[in-house]
């Protein structure tokens, strides 16, 4: 039965709210509304209450507290509930305090800058400890973990072949198609081969592979190491005397640095294949002619330009992935944040370094 409100005024014009039936959380909103609608002074008649829970009791209690309402007709149980919620009246904040608008923007900007600075310094420090770990492995080769490295080769390299192959093939077709469409306007569609060949070997092969590896493996590095940090596996390693950098970071770095050139080369070949197939179908250039033209117009130096960049990209991806993983602290939410940061930073740094390479190679005349 629902709660009913009958407002009866006597000589002093007091209003009475009669609660009938159940006052529970299910009726909280309407009960509160009905009570709010009545003016002071107010009397709450609880004699008709059949069922009450703590939320109902709280509504009665806060009406008494805030408006000085009188309670009549409360049964022993109801009275007990009212005392209980009264005891638990300790206003707690619900959300942390936030500074007002402009101040907040400034403080967030400040935090962002100092965070970026700390990340850079931390990354350099991490790079240092990785180099130290490499040096100590070279001095004591027994500490080299061959199995771990080979397992990483499999995960980073072999298992990426499918997706990188598919991606490269499609990119080859897209470049061939775009090149053909644009160059046809000048009657120069035969130069599509130059376009596909040179851009693939110099830029797209290593760059697209790096983006794919950052998304696949850089994120996995951060998530794996981050989870291990959370479950205290990393701390356990330290206490046993195993250096986590040697055991976790070095194999991943090696895998990325060695696999990136191989994957890049593979990607280049598949992209050329995709471009070749498009050129064959659309421009009617047979595969043999395509290969001959490639040999004529693409200097072998382009391959070296691409291949030199690949291990550097791999290094950056593994470095940021492992670094962000090591930064995980506290709760599992951090793993997600750090994994995202690892991928974003890796791709950003790869593109920055790629730009540096481009300027460098053009300055030394490898155009």
């Amino acid at each position: 039965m629902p709660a009913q409100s009958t407002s009866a005024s006597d000589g002093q014009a007091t209003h009475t709210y009669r609660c009938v039936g159940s006052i529970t959380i299910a009726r909280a909103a309407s009960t509160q509304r009905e009570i709010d609608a009545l003016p002071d002074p107010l009397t709450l008649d609880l004699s008709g209450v059949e069922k009450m829970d703590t939320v109902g009791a709280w509504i009665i209690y806060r009406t008494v507290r805030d408006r000085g309402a009188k309670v009549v007709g409360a049964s022993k149980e109801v009275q007990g509930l009212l005392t209980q919620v009264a005891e638990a009246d300790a206003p707690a904040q619900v959300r942390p305090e936030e500074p007002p608008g402009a101040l907040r923007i400034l403080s967030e900007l400040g935090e962002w800058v100092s965070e970026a600075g700390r990340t850079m310094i931390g990354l350099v420090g991490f790079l240092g400890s990785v180099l130290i770990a490499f040096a100590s492995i070279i001095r004591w080769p027994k500490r080299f973990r061959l199995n771990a490295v080979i397992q990483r080769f499999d995960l980073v390299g072999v298992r990426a072949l499918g997706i990188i192959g598919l991606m490269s093939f499609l990119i080859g077709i897209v470049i061939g198609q775009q090149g053909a469409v644009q160059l046809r306007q000048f009657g120069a569609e035969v130069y599509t081969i130059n376009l596909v060949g040179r851009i693939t070997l110099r830029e797209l092969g290593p760059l697209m592979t790096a983006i794919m590896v950052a998304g696949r493996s850089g994120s996995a590095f951060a998530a794996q190491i981050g989870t291990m940090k959370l479950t205290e596996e990393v701390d356990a390693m330290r206490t046993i005397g195993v250096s986590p950098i040697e055991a976790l970071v070095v194999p991943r770095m090696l895998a990325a640095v060695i696999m990136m050139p191989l994957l890049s080369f593979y990607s280049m070949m598949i992209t050329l294949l995709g471009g070749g197939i498009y050129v064959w179908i659309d421009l009617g250039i047979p595969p043999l002619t395509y290969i001959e033209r490639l040999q004529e117009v693409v200097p072998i130096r382009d391959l070296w330009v691409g291949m030199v960049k690949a291990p550097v990209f791999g290094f950056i991806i593994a470095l940021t992935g492992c670094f962000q993983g090591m930064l995980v602290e506290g709760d599992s939410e951090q793993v997600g944040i750090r994994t995202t940061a690892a991928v974003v930073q890796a791709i950003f740094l790869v593109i920055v370094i790629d730009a540096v390479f481009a300027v460098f190679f053009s300055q030394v005349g490898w155009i």
Partner: protein
Amino acid sequence: MSSRDTVITVRGLRNSFGEQVIHEDLDLDVRRGEILGVVGGSGTGKSVLMRSIIGLQKPDEGEIQVLGENMIGREEDEAKNIRRRWGVLFQNGALFSTLTVAENVEVPIREYFPFIKEPLLDEIASYKIAMSGLPPDAGPKYPSELSGGMRKRAGLARALALDPELLFLDEPTAGLDPIGAAGFDELIEQLQKRLELTVFLITHDLDTLWAICDRVAVLADRKVVAVGTIEELLALDHPWIQEYFNGPRGRAASAGLKGQ
């Protein structure tokens, strides 16, 4: 089959993971208003039993009734009505990490009663927090800023958000220091009395069993081998029960209670 006084009825429950059978022909009754302790060695499926009852684990066979409603094969919409009548405290609190403690407590209320206004909602969250024995300044904190004991209390506050009739607790005192654990026991007992709860309590903690449980169900050999007060259980000569209650830790716990 279920009388008014039985809140949970489990009949012929079978659970398995692949080849491994966890429960086989398991029966259990939980009576209204009692604190039922569930004990058993590691891997006997205490948590799996709880998860089956609350519908997180689909059993292979068997019948489960909670609060007079059949739980197996229910539509999600129907199950919702039963769900708001119980509260669950998971082992590590399972608080939502992106929300503050107070917001965590508000989640179930918002879900089921979207028309309750913000100020009232905040006050409800506040007193639930106070009721669970947390200081008021815990309200705006995020779960990652809390200690293990506080996290459990916050989880309890969320479990109590909708004034449930039935409370499931999965190892509430695990990982707490003895003082914190005793405090938590006391809190559960108090709340159970005040709010007339029925409590399904999984525990390893012998002190908890002696201190607050009305009856204890023992899980072994894939089923509930015995249910009763600790005294009744002690009279049985099941090897695991004897070792559990009469081992060095069991004796210490019972001596500690008798000494009080």
